[in-house]
C-alpha cells in the first residue's frame, strides 16, 4: 500500500505515485548480516514509507553502510528479507533491483563524458527497454538541468569539482528511474561550505522527484536537518527511529542521548521516587522509576542556576571555555569529582565563581547498566 504524499515545492510537483511508479516503500524484515562470522547487523527491522527521506545515522562501525548496501543488493543478508513494495527483493540481483546508488567517492566512470556517465544505465539495457540514442541524450541533458550542471555534457569527470562530480553521480543514479535512491555518505568527501549547499539542494531534488531516499551519514546535523525521519544506529542495532524532534527531545536510550546533540550525565540513585546524588537529594522527583542506581542525562544548555543549595547539583568550576555565544563550564561534582558540562550566558557571574549550583530543566533517567 502506497501512501500518497503531496509535496508542495516550486517545481510544480504532484504526488509521488503519479510519477510513473518510481516511488516505492521499502521494508527491512529481521535482517542479520555477518562478515566472516562477525555480526555487522543484528536482527534489524525497518519500514520506510514511500517518498520518504530517511537518514541512517551512527558512528563508524554501527552497521549503517551495511544496511544501505543490503537494501541495494551489494551485499546479501545472512538472514531476513528485504521487500520493495510487496515484492521480496532479497533474491534479486543488484541489476534487477533497480536502485540508484550514490557513493561517497562518486565512483564516476573516468573515461566517459558526463553525458555518457548519466546515460550509461540506459545504454546497457537490452531490447525494447533500451531507449534510442537521441532519447538517452535528451534525458541526460534533462537530468543535468535538474542537478544544475547544464552545458557540461562534454566534460570528463576529471575536469569537475568534487561537488559537481557528486551531482553527476546523483544524475546518473536517477537516470534509470530507480525505485529507491540510496546515498552512502554522499557529502562526506566535500568541504563544509559545499556540503551545506548540496544538503539543501538534495532536499529540493527529493521534494521535486519524490523518490524514496535513504542516505547514510555520521553527521547528526545533516541527518536532523535533511531527513523526514532519522534512524539512529549503534553496534549493528537500530537504537531509535523518529523525526528530528523525537530523537532530540525524547531519546530512548543512553546512547541516543549521548550521540545526538550535547549532553551531560551523572550517576545517581533513586530512592522512593526521589533522585539522590551521593548523599544528597537534588530536588528532582521520579515517582515512576524503580529504586536503585541510575544515570541522569540532561542537556548542558537546559539548566536552571540556583543561588543556595538545598536540593540541587553543586560543583566547583574546573574549566571554562567560550563557545560562540555561550560559555561552557566544566564542574567537578561531589567527592568523586564527577565532571559535567553546563552552559552559561557569557555575562553570567556564576561563570567566575568557584562554586556553581544548578538543577537540570529537562532531564531523563536511565537505569544503570
Amino acid at each position, binding site marked *: 500500500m502506497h501512501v500518497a504524499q503531496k509535496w508542495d515545492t516550486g517545481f510544480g510537483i504532484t504526488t509521488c505515485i503519479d510519477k510513473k511508479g518510481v516511488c516505492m516503500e521499502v521494508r527491512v524484515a529481521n535482517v542479520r548480516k555477518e562478515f566472516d562470522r562477525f555480526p555487522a547487523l543484528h536482527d534489524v527491522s525497518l519500514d520506510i514509507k514511500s517518498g520518504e527521506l530517511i537518514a541512517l545515522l551512527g558512528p563508524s562501525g554501527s552497521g549503517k553502510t551495511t544496511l544501505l548496501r543490503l537494501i*541495494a*543488493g*551489494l551485499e546479501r543478508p545472512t538472514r531476513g528479507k528485504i521487500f520493495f513494495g510487496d515484492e521480496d527483493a532479497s533474491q534479486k540481483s*543488484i*541489476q534487477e*533491483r*533497480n*536502485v*540508484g*546508488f550514490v*557513493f561517497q*567517492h562518486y*565512483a*564516476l*566512470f*573516468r*573515461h566517459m563524458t558526463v553525458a555518457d556517465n548519466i546515460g*550509461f*544505465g540506459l545504454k*546497457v*539495457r537490452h531490447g525494447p527497454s533500451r531507449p534510442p540514442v537521441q532519447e538517452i541524450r535528451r534525458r541526460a541533458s534533462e537530468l543535468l538541468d535538474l542537478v544544475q550542471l547544464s552545458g557540461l555534457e562534454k566534460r*570528463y*569527470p*576529471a*575536469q569537475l569539482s568534487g561537488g559537481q562530480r557528486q551531482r553527476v*553521480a546523483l544524475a*546518473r*543514479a536517477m*537516470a*534509470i528511474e530507480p525505485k529507491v535512491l540510496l546515498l552512502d555518505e554522499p557529502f562526506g568527501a566535500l568541504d563544509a561550505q559545499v556540503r551545506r549547499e548540496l544538503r539543501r539542494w538534495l532536499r529540493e531534488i527529493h521534494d521535486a522527484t519524490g523518490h524514496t531516499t535513504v542516505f547514510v551519514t555520521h553527521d547528526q546535523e545533516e541527518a536532523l536537518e535533511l531527513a523526514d525521519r532519522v534512524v539512529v544506529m549503534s553496534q549493528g542495532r537500530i537504537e531509535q527511529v523518529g523525526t528530528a524532534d523525537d530523537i532530540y527531545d525524547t531519546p530512548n536510550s543512553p546512547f541516543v542521548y549521548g550521540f545526538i546533540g550535547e549532553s551531560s550525565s551523572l550517576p545517581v540513585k533513586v530512592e522512593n521516587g526521589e533522585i539522590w546524588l551521593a548523599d544528597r537529594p537534588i530536588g528532582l522527583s521520579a515517582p515512576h522509576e524503580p529504586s536503585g542506581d541510575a544515570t541522569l542525562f540532561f542537556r548542558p544548555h537546559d539548566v536552571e542556576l540556583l543561588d543556595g543549595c538545598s536540593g540541587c547539583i553543586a560543583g566547583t568550576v574546573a574549566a571554562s571555555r567560550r563557545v560562540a555565544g555561550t560559555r561552557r563550564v566544566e564542574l567537578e561534582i561531589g567527592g568523586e569529582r564527577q565532571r559535567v558540562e553546563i552552559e552559561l550566558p557569557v555575562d553570567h557571574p556564576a561563570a567566575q565563581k568557584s562554586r556553581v549550583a544548578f538543577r537540570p530543566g529537562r532531564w531523563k533517567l536511565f537505569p544503570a547498566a
Partner: protein
Amino acid sequence: MTTAPAQAGWRFRQPSVIPGFGLTLGFSLAYLTLIILIPLSGLLWRSAALGWPEFWAIATDRRTINALEISFGTAFIAAAVNVVFGTLVAWVLVRYRFPGRRIVDAMVDLPFALPTAVAGIALTTLYAPNGWIGKLLMPLGIKVAYTPLGIVIALIFIGLPFVVRTVQPIMEEIDKEVEEAAATLGANRFQIITRILFPGLAPAIVTGFALAFARGVGEYGSVIFIAGNLPYKSEIAPLLIVIRLEEYNYPAATAIAAIMLALSFVMLLVVNLVQTWSRKRYG
C-alpha cells in the same frame, strides 16, 4: 625589469624552490648522451659511410627484407598474444586470493632474470620434433622449433612480464565502487568488463604491448636457438647483423641496424601518440 616578458613563447617550467634542477637535468642529459645518443649516432654515422645506392641495395635485398619481416612480424604477433594472456594473468593475480599466488606472482618475473640463451635452449628442447611438446604436435603436422612459430613462442616467453607488470598496478588501482556503480545501473558482468574495466586499462595495455614488442624486436639470445636460422625463412634481423659482422661487413651490418632503428622509432612514436591521446581523454 626583473621578470621575463610574459609573451615569451618557450620557457623552462618554473622549477620548485627545492634546489637541484640544474644539477639533475645536467646529469641526466650527460648520461643519456653517453649511454644512448653517442652509440646511436655512431651507428648512423657508420652506415652513412655507405653510399646511398649501396645502402639501398642492402635495404632492398631479399634476405634483409625477409629478416626484418620475420623480426617485426613475430614480435608483433608475440606482443599481441602477450597482451591477451598477460592481462589475464594480471587479472588472476590482482583479483583472486589463492594458495601459491605469491609464487605465481614471482614466476612472472623469471623471463626477466633468466639468461635468454637458457630460455632458448629450454624451449628448443621442449619444442624440437623429438621434445616433450614437439613430439605431441608432430603428428598434428605442427612444427614449432626451427620455424617462425618457434620464434613467436620464444618472444612470448620473453615478453610476458612486460605486459603483466605494466597492467597489474593499474588493475590494482581500479576502484571496486566503480564496478558496483555499474552493477546498480543494470550492467551485467560482461558489460562491466568491456565498458568499464577495459577502457580504464587500455593505456596500460598499450604500454605493455609496446614494451613487449620492442623487447621482441631486439631479442637475440633465446631466438637463435629455436629459430633454426634458415635464411629467408627463420632468420631474424639481429642475427643477420651478427652474420654481417662476422663477415667483417660493417657497413652492411650498420645499414640493417639503422633500418631497424628507424622502424622501431616509428612504432614507438605511434604507440606514444596513442597514449597521449588516451591520457588526454581519460585525464
